[in-house]
């Protein structure tokens, strides 16, 4: 009896130690995740050449004033906004349209079509063949090259398709008997039932477009005016302070702070939409995981 009681006491103690260590590790990790963001926020409000930790040092608005007066910055922000809005709407629409027939078990050549799409998920010509082809069709250095090649995401296509497959076919049958056409059935009956998956995929796509810098890096070799924000920031951080854009010594001194201000502004849309992300992404990824 006594031994069991000692055992039990030990267990309680062991569990308490475990939970304490658990909370410490998870709290530390959470802090590591958030501290870099706090640091960059503090840096964006600081004077140049200060060892900034979590609070601004030599508080000033110079960097923000500078960024918000920069025509190039507004233009990049605008390009990002444009490709994100157009790209996301286009992508979700195109993928939803294609997923609908592919979700029908007896759609003719269904397996063939799926193979056709899966191949491009696994294999691509590579950046040079793409570059040459886009050059031939006149898309290099245009805004279209930032949008059109990124519309078809096979991963998202599969997500939407599996959601469609889970819908009861009886509703559609009833509408068909009532004489509704395919387009009407899809848009007024099927899609309204699929809002959760469409929002999930839409949010994935928003993030992908907003964060994409590779398209601009590869396919905008000379037209830096069309750089979306991510590419603009990358280009800015990689340029050295002796470059001509830093002719003004005050601006050159503020390079890190200006960078920080740009980064903060570029993150704002993501942070603003973040509560939605949390709500839909977690359900979306579990859906994807179940599928996979």
């Amino acid at each position, binding site marked *: 009896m006594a031994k069991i009681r000692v055992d039990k006491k030990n267990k309680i103690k062991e569990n308490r130690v475990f939970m304490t260590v658990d909370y410490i590790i998870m709290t530390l990790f959470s802090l590591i995740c958030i501290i870099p963001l706090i*640091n960059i926020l503090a840096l964006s409000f600081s004077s140049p050449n200060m060892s900034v930790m979590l609070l601004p040092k030599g508080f000033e608005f110079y960097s923000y004033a500078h960024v918000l007066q920069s025509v190039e910055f507004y233009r990049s922000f605008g390009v990002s906004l444009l490709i994100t809005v157009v790209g996301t709407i286009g992508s979700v629409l*195109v993928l939803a349209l294609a997923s609908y027939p592919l979700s*029908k078990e007896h759609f*003719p050549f269904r397996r063939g079509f799926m193979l056709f*799409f899966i191949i491009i998920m696994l294999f691509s010509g590579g*950046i040079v*063949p793409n570059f040459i*082809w886009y050059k031939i069709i006149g898309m290099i250095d245009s805004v279209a090259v930032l949008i059109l090649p990124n519309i078809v995401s096979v991963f998202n296509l599969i997500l939407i398709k599996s959601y469609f497959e889970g819908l009861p076919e009886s509703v559609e049958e009833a509408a068909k008997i009532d004489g509704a056409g395919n387009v009407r059935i899809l848009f007024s009956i099927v899609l309204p039932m699929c809002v959760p998956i469409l929002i999930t995929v839409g949010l994935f796509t928003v993030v992908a477009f907003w964060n994409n810098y*590779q398209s601009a890096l590869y396919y905008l070799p000379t037209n830096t005016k069309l750089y979306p924000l991510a590419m603009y920031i990358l280009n800015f951080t990689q340029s050295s302070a002796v470059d001509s854009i830093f002719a003004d010594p005050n601006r050159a001194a503020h390079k890190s702070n200006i960078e920080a201000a740009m980064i903060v502004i570029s993150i704002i849309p*993501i942070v603003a939409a973040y509560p939605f992300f949390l709500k839909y992404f977690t359900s979306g990824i579990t859906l994807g995981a179940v599928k996979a």
Partner: protein
Amino acid sequence: MKSDMTIKEKMKRYGSLMPFLIPCVALALLFSYIPMVGILMAFKGKINLFLYEPFEAFVKAPWSMENFAKIFENEDFMKILGNTLLISVLKIAVLFPIPIIFALLFAEIKNPTASKLMQSVMYLPYFLSWAVATGIFMNMFSSYGMVNTICIKLGLMSKDSPVLWYQNPSKFLFLMLFTGGWKDIGWSMIVYVSAILSIDSTYYEAARLDGAGKMQQIFLITLPLIKGTIVTMFILRICYILDAGFDQIFTMLNNSTRDKWEIIGTYVYRVGLQQSDYGFSTAVGLLNSVAALVIIIAGNFIVKKFSGKGIW
């Protein structure tokens, strides 16, 4: 009854849905399939874009295997292949187990406020662009950035010789793992957390009645039950071993580190699009994608064997 429908019957029933596929198929053809023709460039000699229009230059160039011969004579290639594999293997060795351990720890946190707060903080980095993430860390790890300031305060570094982390090739792997972990660990935990939360809670109740502590519960109940998920995720991860993460590595490289730490992706970009050595770059890219494809198909085959469900 339905399963033996002929193509004709299928067409009659669903053929009218065919037009819905047109935009998606057209985009895939235009932006993915047609450019694949350009792979032929790998089998061509010098393509002269200064004299001709791209298409004409491509047709005029003579057939040759010199690009592939060049790859294996090239010392650079062996180095970047080694870098790619080293970075990938390190990422798997360090960044694959951590999300599993953290998921086990996170699932034990039952306080809803704490768990929600931690969750929202841990996922956030995943949603930032690598361009932004590296921008943040380049400042944090700059000569008088936060990290050096802390090191100096702790006496780990002398004030007069601060470490230039991003300019120092010997710090590259550490930064790669640290920033890569920062961005992806939280997000990678989701799969495991949801696998753990779907375990029937009666197992744990029974174990508690039998006097099992938290550690025993983890090792004797949770881990065995999520083993399938772990193995599947591991094989999938191995499938992408040739992808060291262009997005991340490209933003990290600079003139001081490029020579030492270039990977296949950044090399293909630099040689192909910056130095316009189209044929050679395409050949390197082609070898890489064919090898990657073979690995992925093999991996999918194994996953299917193991869990009954593949990636597709």
